[in-house]
């Protein structure tokens, strides 16, 4: 005889009596829950930041029995329109992409943890569900200065985050670091951020001595990294959205100096298409939306930025380039 204690959660109007709406990345979330604390956690996002008719349902059951759940790293799997996985501490989430539903059981510890919401639950949810509700996640950073939105893209490990951090030190407002979430409003491109901090690898301390005062932590992908709040790090502001008008595609070189080389739109389109998550055939509308949005994005003036300089010198070069080429197209 095996002694098994199972947990069973039923999602319906009886088990989820509390309701509210909130907005992330311009998308409306209809939330149902059994926890007043959850309502409090999402209250910061209750002001609509973009007029977008897209929405999804999120149902969350908080249960103290999950405190005793086995601790394990984040672990997600999917098939077709269904995605599910464990998310520490003690939580489990399922996504139904066709019906636009998120259902989660959270430990009380997770429900109360601000960083769980800010750094895990919301970014993962928009990352998985976004394309279904009109918000396409793409791997790039977004910053803004004097109303000029710019995107920093490039291959992994090229130094996008250190450059982003250096740009915030030059007064650029941060919209997003690693991932930016794009939607269209009246055919114009809007870039959304999710309040996520900048993630810097330990070797970034050679450029930012102030990191020495912080303690790096292990992130979802197993990397050891510093989590940097731009407001504390650089006195910089953060913004929810921006209208990007330029793309810089970062490349490292061993030669000194920073060189801006116009980049054809086909290369930008190719880069984002080839680096985007594979989507199953069930999600054909999402695929079409992403292709359309990448097409719009690739029409922005774009430059390959070849740099052999430090993040600070490179950020200075970008700042000057934007000032000198305010009306320039690539």
């Amino acid at each position: 005889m095996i002694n098994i204690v199972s947990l069973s959660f039923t999602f319906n109007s009886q088990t989820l009596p509390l309701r509210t709406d909130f907005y992330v990345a311009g998308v409306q979330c209809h939330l149902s829950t059994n926890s007043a604390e959850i309502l409090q956690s999402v209250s910061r996002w209750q002001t609509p930041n973009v007029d977008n008719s897209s929405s999804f349902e999120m149902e969350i059951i908080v249960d103290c029995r999950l405190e005793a759940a086995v601790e394990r790293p984040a672990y997600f799997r999917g098939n077709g329109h269904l995605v599910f996985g464990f998310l520490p501490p003690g939580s489990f989430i399922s996504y139904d992409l066709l019906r636009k539903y998120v259902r989660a059981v959270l430990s009380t510890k997770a429900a109360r943890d601000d960083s769980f919401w800010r750094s895990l639950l919301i970014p993962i949810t928009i990352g998985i569900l976004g394309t279904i509700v009109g918000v396409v996640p793409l791997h790039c950073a977004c910053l803004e200065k004097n109303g000029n939105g710019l995107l920093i893209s490039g291959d992994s490990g090229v130094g996008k985050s250190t450059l982003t951090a250096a740009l915030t030190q030059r007064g650029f407002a941060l919209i997003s670091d690693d991932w930016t979430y794009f939607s269209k409003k009246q055919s114009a491109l809007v870039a959304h951020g999710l309040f996520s901090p900048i993630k810097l690898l330990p070797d970034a301390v050679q450029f930012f001595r102030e990191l020495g005062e912080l303690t790096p932590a292990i992130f979802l992908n197993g990397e050891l990294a510093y989590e940097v709040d731009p407001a504390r790090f650089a006195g910089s502001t953060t913004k929810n959205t921006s209208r990007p008008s330029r793309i810089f595609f970062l490349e490292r070189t061993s030669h000194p100096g920073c060189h801006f080389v116009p980049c054809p739109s086909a290369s930008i389109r190719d880069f984002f298409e080839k680096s985007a998550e594979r989507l199953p055939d069930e999600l054909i509308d999402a695929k079409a939306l992403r292709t359309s949005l990448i097409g719009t994005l690739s029409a922005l003036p774009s430059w390959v930025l070849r740099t052999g300089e430090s993040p600070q010198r490179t950020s200075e070069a970008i700042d000057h380039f934007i000032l000198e080429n305010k009306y320039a197209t690539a």
Partner: protein
Amino acid sequence: MQPLELSHYSDPLDLLRRFIKTPMKATYRFDGARLGVETNDCVLLPELPLDADITAPCALEWKLIRDADSPGLLEPPMFLTSATLTVVAMGTACLLALDHETRKLFAFIGTDIDALAFREYLVPFLCRMTKDALSGDPIGYFVSWNYDSAHV
């Protein structure tokens, strides 16, 4: 038959492993209905009566994915049930979901789940889910699930 390929799956553009191929297929007669099963591991083809009628549509389909990167043994199941889905997590060793409307069930099964555990535990479990789904009541039973009752 080709030797089983259970190497670690690595596709940086498919972190959710949606595109793991499941080339082995069989059809069974179960509870008076036709059940289709596809998998990437012949060990996961259940010992149920085969159905020779390959032209008829399946009443329900299982997709059983052997996942070389899902560690551990089966843990007590956790059920998430709603009007359209039943999701069951038994640790990372076995995650499964049944869409009541499309009548498709898929499961990721770790390599630590051997043939015996699959046959003695998971197959009865999957059969019970299937039976309830086919009977039009995919939720009620699992709300009060226990180990003994899984053995039909």
